[in-house]
Structures are given as structure tokens and as C-alpha cells.
């Protein structure tokens, strides 16, 4: 009963996102995310519970491990609980569903801690996972994170090949949808918005937000929709870090060095 209520609450709070396409989002009642998000590195802020929004009854989900093997995920209503990670590195959660003349897919990448898989993360992103797929190019580095005010590049593939001149929509909780178009290589770049509210000083005091990329492509009568969701963090340089003061400190240090030069030159002259 409690879970049904939570799912209902979560569904209502995110109502209207994704243009009806399925997408992954951390489950609201997973406290692990808030605790883990206080630190960077492997497994940073990763939830163990995810909800598949807008999902149909026939949706299926699987987890692709860093060594590219796959495990099926089982839904309880629209929620999946991830198993304990058997290895460290990037994981991809993939959900797929169909309806009359339509296919839906959703992808989300996670970094989880464990013994290294010894397989290059590039292989996970390069692996075709769904017919229509938004691919991070590259995915942020293991110890890094998607950050507001920074730009990131993605590729759009259909049946493993670049899809050109296609619209992709970026949505976040606090910024209206923006549309990007893929170039002749099927690539597009987005700048994540600085749209955090009630910001506290210190990165660990602020929970990551979520961004959602949605795209669709019609192939004959069949409509394909695909999404990619990932967390993103605020950029300290937008708030409590000053780059201007940083440049000023470098300049002061430089002047200090020149003063030393002047003194040593004087000393050398005086013998």
C-alpha cells in the first residue's frame, strides 16, 4: 500500500515530463541517494531503486553490467530494485516497451563501486542497446558528474547508425523544454541549465537534479521514442566559488614572485 502511494505521488510530481515516453527516475523513497550524494567518486549519489515513468504494462527492463553481460530487472508496479553490484564501473539500465505502431525505450547510466571490470567503459556506450538511442559522447568520467552550466555532447543513433537533423528535447524540473537538432554526424550538444533553487553553500548540501533527453523517429508507420535521464549537480562556480577572485589570487602570487626577483637582483648587485 505504502509503495502504491509513493508511486502515485512520484507519478503526479513528475506529471507531464517526457512527452509520454518512458524514462527512468530515482525512486523518491530511496534515502540512499541523498546520503550517497554527499560524496563524489564511484557510486556517488546512486539510487538502488528506480521508477520507470509513463510505463505500459508490457515494458521490460534489463541491467547491462560493465563487462557487457545482462541481467533482467523485475518490476514491482513501475519500480525496480537494483541487485548488489557484482563489479565496479558503468552500468546501463535499459527499459523497452511497445504499443500499436510504436516502440518506447529508456536508458540511464550508473557508476557503481566494486572490483574493476577490466572492460573499457567506451564499450558500454558503444554497445547498441535500443533501436533508437541517445548516447553520451562521452559519458562523464567515473569521478566526475554532469554539472550545470557546462556543455556535453551526445549522439543519436537509429539501428546503430547516426540519425541526422532530428529534434531532441532537453527537460529539467525547473527549466522549460529546449529543443536541439542533431548535425550531419547525428551529434548534438546541450548546456545544462543552472536552475537549482534554495542553494546551500557546499556541494554536499545540495541534492543533484535530473535532466531528461527525449527524441522520436518515425520509420514508416512505426514510431520510435527514446529517452536518456541522468542526474546533474550544481556548479560551485555559479555560487560559492569565485573565478575572478581565483584569477586575482594568481596575480597576487605572480606579483609576489616578481618582488622576490627584485630583491634577489638587488642582492646580487650589492654583492
Amino acid at each position, binding site marked *: 500500500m505504502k509503495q502504491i502511494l509513493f508511486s502515485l505521488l512520484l507519478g503526479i510530481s513528475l506529471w507531464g515530463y517526457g512527452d509520454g515516453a518512458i524514462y527512468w527516475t530515482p525512486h523518491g523513497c530511496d534515502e540512499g541517494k541523498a546520503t550517497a550524494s554527499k560524496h563524489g567518486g564511484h557510486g556517488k549519489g546512486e539510487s538502488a531503486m528506480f521508477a520507470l515513468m509513463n510505463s505500459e504494462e508490457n515494458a521490460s527492463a534489463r541491467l547491462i553490467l560493465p563487462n557487457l553481460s545482462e541481467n533482467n530487472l523485475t518490476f514491482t508496479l513501475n519500480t525496480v530494485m537494483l541487485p548488489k553490484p557484482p563489479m565496479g564501473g558503468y552500468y546501463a539500465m535499459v527499459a523497452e516497451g511497445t504499443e500499436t505502431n510504436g516502440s518506447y525505450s529508456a536508458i540511464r547510466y550508473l557508476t557503481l563501486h566494486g572490483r574493476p571490470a577490466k572492460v573499457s567503459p567506451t564499450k558500454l556506450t558503444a554497445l547498441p542497446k535500443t533501436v533508437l538511442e541517445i548516447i553520451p559522447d562521452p559519458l562523464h568520467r567515473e569521478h566526475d558528474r554532469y554539472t550545470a552550466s557546462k556543455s556535453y555532447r551526445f549522439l543519436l543513433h537509429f539501428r546503430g547508425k547516426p540519425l541526422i537533423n532530428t529534434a531532441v528535447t532537453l527537460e529539467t524540473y525547473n527549466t522549460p523544454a529546449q529543443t536541439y537538432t542533431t548535425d550531419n554526424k547525428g551529434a548534438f550538444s546541450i548546456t545544462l541549465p543552472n536552475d537549482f533553487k534554495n542553494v546551500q553553500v557546499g556541494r554536499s548540501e545540495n541534492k543533484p537534479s535530473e535532466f531528461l533527453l527525449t527524441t522520436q523517429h518515425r520509420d514508416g508507420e512505426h514510431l520510435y521514442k527514446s529517452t536518456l535521464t541522468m542526474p546533474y549537480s550544481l556548479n560551485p562556480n555559479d555560487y560559492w*566559488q569565485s573565478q575572478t577572485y581565483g584569477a586575482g589570487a594568481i596575480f597576487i602570487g605572480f606579483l609576489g614572485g616578481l618582488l622576490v626577483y627584485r630583491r634577489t637582483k638587488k642582492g646580487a648587485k650589492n654583492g
Partner: protein
Amino acid sequence: MDKLLTVTALRRVVQLTAFVFFVYGAMIFATFYTDDKLTQALPALSCAYDMKGGDYCALIPLQHQMDHRVSTLFTQNAGVMEALMGTLITIGTVALLILILNKAFCGWLCPLGFFQEAITMIGTKLGLTQLGSLSRETVNKIRPIKWFLFLFLVLLFPILTGIGLLGHEWGSPFCSICPSRIMTTAMTGDMNQIYISQANGGYFALSLIADTLFGLMIALALFVTQPFCRICPILPMQTLFKKIGLLRLVKNGNSHCDSCSNCVKACPMDIYEIQDQAENRNITHSDCTLCGRCVEFCPHDGVMNFKYGPLTLYSSSKEGFKKRTKIDKWWKG
């Protein structure tokens, strides 16, 4: 062509190649993911904050291991192997690399070392009076700083952070002040590492030190050789294994060496000990970067030698000395 063929010329080519690899390598040779790095434990200041870098320095994993693993010995009663395995792998990798190239990681491969040398070259060409050698007294005062940085910023503070006695900002304090973090990221066009943090007193102090130190290092490098290298905590780490290094500096002084001090004057780290009498002895000092200048500027046949295992790679000679001095005069104008 032969006139320009010197150890220093060869070193510059190697340094430039290493700089490109360590600062931009992920764009050319490998992917930028941590999992794809060559070693993740280089005994040279190639920074992990540089997302386009080819590999990164041993100090960042070491600090993280102190913070997240070694500290669990005190907080979670973790098993010794569980707590120390990561550190042992990092130190083992460093030991293996030192065995192969010893301290040449500093003089031949470190991007920050090359950056400082490039600035010194600019200072020379700008006509700034070069400070020659620092006095023995000054050198002796500076030397303990690198041990302080290694023991406190690389080992102790991260452990205390892991235990919970210090704030999170002290989890990797050396990286927070390291000039290589600012230099390598700026070289790739990423200016995000230049900042003053107002998050709390600790972050503020570390960011202020980092930026000021970076500016100071650039200004000092215009007229002093290797200003940051003299306090770099990589040196103590290398020192732990320098005895096993196959590449080494061997002095065979006996009657040939007349203690002319040319070697000390040529040494960018002002190691006065290399002029001491030694008979066929490994004189690779803790501060030595194996740059080879002392071998080039020694006017006596066979006194200073670069050796790799039993092989002599390069020896000092009258001819070599004449050639090197001539080039030096030409360079300094």
C-alpha cells in the same frame, strides 16, 4: 645537426612528447575514462582533474586510499588487507615504474616540470637575470618542505578526514593546492579549477594557497630553476624506491674530479652533494630529477655517468663539455 645533439636536446623532445601525452593523451591515444588509464599511479604530476589527460599521478589515489580505505582500520575495524590493498597496489605500481625509469619521471616526463622549464627558457630569452644556484643554506631550509607535504597533505590529513576528525576538504588536500591541477586543466581550455572557494575556512584556505602558489611558481620560474619541484611530494615517494632504480647517476671521481663545482652550477635542483668525492658510487640524490645536466657540464672524462643497470648510457667528457658550454653560451646570447 650533431652540434645540437645533446642530452638536453633529447630530453626536450621527450618532455614535449610526454607533455602532449599526459595533458592531451585522452584525445589522441586513449579514452578519457579512469578505467582506461595506463597506470593511474604515475610518479609524476600529471593531473587526474585534466579530463583530456593520458594518465595521472599516484598522489590522488594515495590520498583517496588514505581517506576511504586506510582510515577504516580505525573506524570500522576493517581487515588489514581490505584496508591496505589499494595502497599496496598504488605503491607497488610506483615501485615498478621507479625500477624502470627511477627519478627520470621528474626530469624527463613530468608535465609540470616541463612547464616550469619552459617558463625558465622564456625568462632567459626575456633577458631576466637568472638566479644561478640557491645557497646551500637556502636549499637545506627548503628540502624538508616536501617531506612535510608528503606526510601531512598526502598521508595524515586524508586519514584524519576518513576517521572524521577533519572536514571533507582535507580528504585530498595536496590536489587542492597542486599547481599541476590548474596548469593541466588550463592547458586544455578548462578554467574551472581557478577559483576561490567560500564554502568554509578550509576550502577557502586551500583554494587561496593553490592560486597564489600557482602565480608564485610562474613568476619564480622566470628566474629560478624548478621552483615547485623543490617542494614536490612526489620526490619523497620516489626516494623510497630510488635504490632499486635501474637508471641512475654514478660518479667515479677518484683523482679525475677536481671539485670544480660545474656539476652543482649546472644542477637545476642545486644538489651540492654531487660535488663530493665518490668512487664508482650511485649518487642519485633524493632531489635529483636525472636531467643529466651534471653529466653534460662535467669537464672530466668518465667522472659523471648515466647508467642503466650495468650499461653506461652516457659519460662526461672534455669534448662533450666543450660542446655543451658552447650551446649554452649561444642559447643565453
